Structure formats: C-alpha cells, structure tokens
C-alpha cells in the first residue's frame, strides 16, 4: 500500500489507497439438505488521486499491479470532477467493537449442524415444506492510507444465518423465512425457527381482501421492503444537493409525525453495519435524521459535503466506485403500542410482512407500490389468514405524516435496519 501511495504521489498532488480483503465461508442447504460448502477469498485495491485539482480513480485485485493502477487513475483524472475536499489527516477514531475472533473459529461442521437443526425444526409438522438455509462466517479487513498522513484500519466479523421455506399446492405458493446477522457467532436457532413457525401458522388459511383504503401494520420486514428505500434516498446528501429530495428544503421543519425519530448509526458494538470510520477514513458518528418528526440532518461524504457547504457525517461508502453518501444502519425509535394491541385495534385491515417489487416506483418522490408476498388479513382485531393477489401502494411523505401507532418492540432486519412495527391508516389496497 505504501508503495502505491508513493508512486501515486510522484504524479499527483494527493492520493489515497483503500485496501479491502475478505474471507467468506458460506454453507448452503437446498431442497432440505446440505448442498455446497464454499470459501471465497477476495482482495481489492482502490486508488483515488487528485491531479491538477481533479479526481482520478482506479481499482485492481492484485496489489502488485502498481503501474497499471497508477496509470489508470491518471487517465481518469483528465476528466474527473474537481476535488472540493481534502483527505482527512491523522485523527482519532471512536472505539467501536466490530470483530469477534470466535466467528472465524466456528467450524463447517457446526454451521452445517445449525442448518440441519433449523430445517428439521420447521419441517417437523410441515413435511411438505421445501427448505433452503444459508449460514456464513466472514472476516473483512479494511485499510486506508492517504497523502495527508491519514491512516486507519479495522477488522469486521459477520456471522449470518437464514432459513426459508416454500409451500406449494397446485399453483398456490407460500414463502416464509427469517434471517439474522451479528458480529458474534449465532447459535440460537430457535429465535429464527420460531418466527418461521409463526408465519406458517398465520398463513394457514387464505382470507379475501376488498379493494379500498384501509389500515395496514408494517412489520419490521414490511418496513424494510416497502418504506425504507425511499427514506434512505430522501436523506442522501447527494440527492438533496441535486435538489431532487422532497426533504431538501425542509430541514428544521416538522415533516413527519411528531413521534417519529430516526437515526443513522454505525457506532453500535458488534453490528455488521458498524465501523470506526467510513470508506474515506472519516470517523463514524450517529446522525439524527428525524427527531420527533422534524427533519434534522442528511448523510454526507467528503465531496458532497464540501459542495453543499456541510461537514461529512462519516457516511462515505464505496460500492465498486468512488465513495458516495451511504446509510449504515437506520434505527427507528420504538413507540409505546404492542403489536398485539395494534392488531386488536383494526376492524378491517392488513399486516404486511413482505412487499415484492416495492422499490420499482418513483422512489425519489417517496412512492412505494408492491405485491404482498407475505401478509395477513385482520378482521375485528384478529389475524384471520394470509392475503393473496393484493397490491399495496402509498407515498411515505404522506403516510408518515400521521402514524396511527409506533410499536414498542424493535428488531434488526438484514443488519441495516432496526425498527418497531408501524401502524398506518388509509393505505390504498387493490385486490382481485
């Protein structure tokens, strides 16, 4: 890395080298049985330079390819954006626990045993259920150095576990599933299988739905599949800077229900989205996005912040290219109503667990619209069965203005969201 930095400095004013290496061991079950054991080794080196004031960028997988890397970065710098920022110099970082050596030590045998146990548990009593399961342990090492003396590194461990089931009768298909991840090893299979068994129980019968406006409870999974994507886009500093976020000119204003508080938080110990610094070496911080309904902040990387006259929130993320503002983990604060009380309050409505295709509409404008892949009908305060052929649509900026209730129990979804259920009213439901 030092060699790349030294070579780059010979041809450019400033340079930064980002090095990522990972080891991943996935164990896969298909059709109820162990199918694959894999191991994946990856390395990637990214060089970002500032030459004649412009940004250049290139990546290689082999860190010995110094010449090619530097040449490619120089070539791109002819056309790159003007760099409006400076690489961060040496600084101190918050102490955030992201690595548990126990993850690496989990054996393939143990992982395969956990998978077998999950599948056996959910198929017990549901012999027609076709199951897949995936377990994986991975270690990621991130190193970053730059020409201003900035230097930082960390290791991240992630253990993840998922189980899915499909029940097919004629052309009727039911899909259930649960996944969890942590920077510690996960050994408790029951917390996953209990969720799946409950889904199977609630989906046992089918219930008809009429077309019209009705109350809908979005479970944490439902929120992840329907509401979160437009929200993440709306708070992205780059979208704000371009003027295409509906929140852009609303900072400090009450835009959402007064009970809604949301933050972006990469600082929670042992969570897969946590890290002491972002992909540009800027220290991690909690960023409050919505506080009691008021829009309070947007997410910035270095370049976007400089262009907008703001400070980086330590939200620079790389997705195969130059860093750009990226959320780490969205955390929605809990309210005071239990899920059961929400259901009890509904005379006619839905519980949405999984909305398919919700991110295809006008996300920028806050729209979501999708087919209920897993969801239940509520009648007179009780879940009476699963709904099918049903489409749910809405706009988050309208719906989150007036929330009927916020749940009291939060959970993690996919490592990037911690949320309680949300109970919303007057949602458009189309069915046939």
């Amino acid at each position, binding site marked *: 890395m030092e060699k790349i930095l030294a070579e780059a400095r010979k041809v450019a004013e400033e340079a930064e080298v980002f090095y990522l290496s990972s080891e991943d061991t996935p164990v896969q079950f298909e059709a109820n049985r*162990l199918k694959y054991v894999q191991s994946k080794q*990856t390395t990637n080196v990214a060089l970002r330079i500032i030459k004649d004031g412009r940004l250049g960028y290139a990546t290689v997988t082999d860190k010995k390819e110094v010449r090619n890397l530097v040449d490619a970065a120089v070539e791109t710098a002819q056309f790159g*954006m003007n760099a409006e920022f400076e690489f961060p110099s040496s600084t101190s970082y918050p102490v955030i626990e992201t690595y548990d050596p126990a993850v690496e030590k989990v054996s393939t045998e143990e992982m395969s045993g956990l998978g077998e146990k999950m599948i056996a548990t959910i198929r017990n009593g549901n012999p027609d259920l076709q199951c897949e399961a995936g377990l994986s342990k991975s270690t990621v090492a991130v190193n970053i150095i730059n020409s201003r003396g900035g230097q930082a590194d960390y290791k991240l461990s992630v253990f993840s576990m998922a189980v899915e089931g499909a029940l097919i009768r004629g052309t009727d298909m039911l899909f259930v599933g649960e996944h969890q991840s942590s920077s510690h090893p996960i050994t408790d299979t029951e917390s996953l299988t209990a969720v799946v068994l409950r889904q199977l129980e609630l989906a046992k019968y089918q219930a008809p739905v009429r077309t019209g406006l009705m109350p809908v409870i979005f479970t944490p999974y439902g929120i992840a599949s329907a509401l979160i994507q437009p929200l993440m886009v709306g708070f992205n500093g780059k979208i704000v800077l371009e003027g*295409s976020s509906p929140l852009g000119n609303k900072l400090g204003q009450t835009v959402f229900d007064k009970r809604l508080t949301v933050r972006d938080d990469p600082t929670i110990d042992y969570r897969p989205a946590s890290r002491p610094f972002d992909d540009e070496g800027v220290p991690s911080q909690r960023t409050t996005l919505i506080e009691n309904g008021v829009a309070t902040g947007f997410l910035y990387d270095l370049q976007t912040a400089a262009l907008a006259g703001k400070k980086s929130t330590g939200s620079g993320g790389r997705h195969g290219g130059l860093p750009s503002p990226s959320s780490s983990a969205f955390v929605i604060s809990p309210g005071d109503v239990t899920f059961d009380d929400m259901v009890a309050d509904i005379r006619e409505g839905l519980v949405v667990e999984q909305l398919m295709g919700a991110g295809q509409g*006008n996300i920028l404008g806050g729209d979501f619209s999708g087919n209920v892949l897993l969801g239940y009908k509520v009648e007179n305060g009780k879940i009476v069965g699963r709904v099918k052929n049903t*489409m749910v649509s809405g706009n988050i900026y309208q719906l989150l203005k007036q929330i009927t209730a916020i749940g009291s129990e939060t959970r993690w979804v996919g490592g990037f969201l911690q949320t309680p259920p949300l109970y919303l009213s007057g949602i458009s439901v189309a069915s046939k």
Partner: protein
Amino acid sequence: MAHIDIIGHQLADSLKKHNADYIEVHLEESQSSQITYRGKKLESVNKSSAVGGNVRAMVKGGWGFVSFNSLSNLPKRVETAVKQARFVSGGGSQLAEVEPSVDTVLIGTDNNPVLLPLADKKELLDRYNEIIWVTPGIQTSTINYGDGHKKSIFFSSAGSYIEQERADVTLRLTAVATDGNDVQQVGLSLGSRGDIRAIQDIDDKVEEMSRQAVEILSAPQVKGDKYTVVLDPVLAGVFVHEAFGHLSEADFVYENEQMRELMTLGKEFGGPGLNIVDSASLPGLRGSYKYDDEGVLATKTYLIKEGRLVGRLHSRETAAKMNEQPTGNARAINYRYPPIVRMTNTYIEPGTTSFEEMISDIKEGVYAKNWYGGTTSMEMFTFSAGEAYMIRDGKIAETLRPVVLTGNVFETLKNIDAIGNDLDMNQGGGCGKGGQMPLPVSNGSPHIRIQNCLVGGK
C-alpha cells in the same frame, strides 16, 4: 498481468490427480470502465481490472467451491474444494453427460470497448446530457455508462479446455423533472455485446425521454383496478423474463415434487398463439455465447410452443436429475460465484396482430411502455412500466403516471389474448438471481394484450 493461459495449462494437467469425481476450474481476466454523470457534471470515471478464479469440485454427489483473487498456490485451493466436496458428499448431486470441448472463441481487440479512448466516450455522453438539460422543467439527470471485456478459461477433469472472450456495453440515462413538490423520472436503458455503435445516434430517444419526464408531472395516477393492458415490446420482454422465464429455470423445479407437477411438460400455459423461446445461440445479443460456464454448447430452447410447456432451462445438474437434455444455461456473473441456471436471450415469438388492431376494441384500458423494473416470486410477479397511457375507445388517450402491474403468472399467461407482429429485443436489462447481479441478458416480444391485469394506483 498475470498470465492465466500459462497457469491454466499447468493446472489443467494436474486435475486428474485429485481424488474427486469431477473438478472444474475457471480463470478470468477482466477490464472495465464506468462513467457517471449526475446533473450537469461528469461525476466519476473509473477504470478497473481484475484477475481471479474458482475451483468447483464434486465428490460423491457433494459440491465444494473455492473462489480467489490471488493466483498463488492454486493446487492447494483445488485441494480445499475437494475437501469441502467430500464433507458434503452424499448430497445426491449428479451431472448430465456432455462431450468435453476444446475450443477458443475470441472476439479480437477491435471489438474491445474498454480500449476506446475515454475522451470519445465522454464526448458522446456530454452530448446526451446536453439534450436532457435543454428540456425545460428538468431538475436533474443521471447517466451511467459501463463497458467491460472479459477473457475466461474453463477447464475440467473431464478434459474440456475452453477459452472465451466477451465484451459488453451498457448505457442508462435518467431524466428527473420536478414542479416544486413532486418529482418524476423517466429512464432509458441500452446495451450491446461490446459494440459501442448500439449507443450512438440515439439523440431522438434521449430527447423524447426528457420531454416525457416533464409531461408526467401533470399526469394523473391511474385508479388501482383490473384493466385490459397492452404492453409494448420492451415491457412485454420484461414480463416474459420475469413472469415466465424464471419459472422455466429448472433449479426452481428439479428437487421439488410439487413444482415438478406444476411444470409438467405438455401442460397448457397459454393460448395456441403463444410461443416462448430462450436462446444463447442467437448471435450478437447480450445473452449470447458459444459455451456456458459448465462448458456446455449453447442451444435454442422452446419453453412454450403453441401454448404448451415443452422445455426448460438446465444446468448439467438439473438435467441429470430430471433426466432431460442439458441446454447450456449454467452461468455465473463472475469467478466469485458457482454457475446457476440462468436465462440468456428470452422472447415471445411474433404473431400477426398489428398494434392498431390490438387496441381498436378496448373501451377502457392501459397502455404500458418501457421498462423500469421487475421481480417475481414464481407464482406472483410485479413489474413496473416507465410510461403509461389510458386507452379509451380504441385510442391512446391521456398520459398517466408510471404504473406497477402485478399478477399471478399462470392466470396472466392465459389472459394474453393478442400477440403483435412487431418483435423487438431489448438489450438494456440485467438479471439478478441468487445474489448474482446484473447478468447480461436480453428480452424481447412483440406488443401483447393481457385481459384482467391488476394495476396498482390510487
């Protein structure tokens, strides 16, 4: 550069020494460049190069898979894959017999878009961005251009040694319009198998896209309900890919009794005019190739013929299990993944109805155009149109906001009651499955009409 040819030949000779039923190795060298515009400015230019590979081994019906960037100590990685496979053994996987192939399929450096000067690519994109921005009412725009060139070597313990090259070009443009409160966008996706001419001289299309984005700001949203829906070739192509194509991938079917029953060959899925094909052997499309990633020759596979299910897409494993012929549809997005059953170029064959005839007897319906996205859970699908219009009394009427269509695949295929005469292939898409995305594919169809289709809205 690492010389994957030299390493490949060295390693190929040693594969038989390992105690495994089957071993295959992929080695890959790739280069790519991306140019992104956001708003008026070019935002980023990247160049990447990658070297990597994988080993897949089978021992007594169990699979092991190892992928890597580092090419040092490859015999040890082969050893690891064999060890993993032995751990899984008893898994019951088997492979259909295929003749080993030794072949070289090169495209020549003239067809490598990565080697074209960045300045030329930028000049073209600058021109398109200017067209977007001269349109009144545009708030912002995005342009994503990408190209790539890949050389891959596949060899196996059965004696195959195949060297293939491929190139790819994609361009996605989006125009975003706003009137202060509301934001709307319209996109355009194009692509080719490495030929940059496919994205040149599309000024008219870019202009139309930009005008459309502004126009839909003042358009009403359709009332959520069932409609007679006419799909343009782009969207119908997405429909055939999402709604039916994925169902015909044998890995969804082969180990599931209920699915096998549902997808029994000979079963009626649509009217007698419905013919659906997947073919990697059509030349020059983004989903085209000579050999798949298991070294199997590409084929043309009829999935539906005259409304009946007549075929499905196979890897060697699914073909063996279902006792059918391999179709050469095992593909991996890159060396980091094992190959899985994928589509290539998928299309509905043209019928005889003209577009005018198709809409002439619709009293109230929706004309949905242009791809925005799509996904499927096998039984249910949703896909979204980039543009939509009401059809009233046999004529295209007012512009609508973009719509999302959803339905049950089996009902919907049966509800197709007219197939146009104007087949067109869309090269702008990328397919995702099993975490592998975007895989170059193409989809196509003539205009089609669907009765009783559920449209999401107010």
